[in-house]
């Protein structure tokens, strides 16, 4: 399946976009998503290592599966407050 992943902060500047499109296999996990991003967008490879994934407004664990129709986002280390 094809998914969209929201981008923020430096990832937006780096890509010039506020989202990425990623091609994923069935039953892909968060780890698979990050691997696919690194494969399909190699210039993000190093950044992805430091980045968490959110599924529907919640931080996801590495082994969580990506549900269809969910809102996905890459969350670099936060600095609000």
């Amino acid at each position, binding site marked *: 399946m094809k998914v969209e992943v929201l981008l923020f902060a430096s990832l937006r500047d780096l890509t010039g976009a506020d989202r990425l499109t990623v091609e994923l296999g069935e039953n892909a996990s968060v780890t698979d998503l990050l691997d696919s991003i690194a494969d399909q967008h190699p210039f993000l490879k190093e950044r992805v290592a430091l980045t968490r994934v959110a599924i529907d407004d919640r931080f996801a664990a590495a082994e969580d599966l990506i549900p269809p129709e969910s809102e996905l*986002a890459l969350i670099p280390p936060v600095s609000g407050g």
Partner: protein
Amino acid sequence: MASDSTQYHAELVSSTIDVSEQTAWLADPGCGAVLVFCGNVRDSNQGQAVTRIEYQAYESMALSQLREVAKSLLDAGATRALAVHRLGMLEVGETSILLGISLPHRKDGFQLLERGMEQIKTTVPIWKHEHYVDGNVAWIEGS
């Protein structure tokens, strides 16, 4: 523990945070202690002169994470809890975050307020875009 949703409040705002209005909301006749933390934009960061900071958020998630912070402060004993984060461009001296709690006795208040700020600094998807005197800008990631 179940948290009464009328006793906590989280908000993302785009203009000045009214500290006195927010603090007034925290007051409760059963509470002897009200504690408020304000995070303000500093004029320097790691040796660089800062002129202003733009705060960018993943808004839907930031709001739900801020709510989690406020709720967890109630679960830990606060009577009321309030978390307000401002987004957009802020000048030096302006308040970006207000975290406040009220509770019957002051004793646990200080560490609760600290814990709430730690939670905000690590779990709420908001990022600083710092603008420096020399015209450069930088995203701050991690704090």
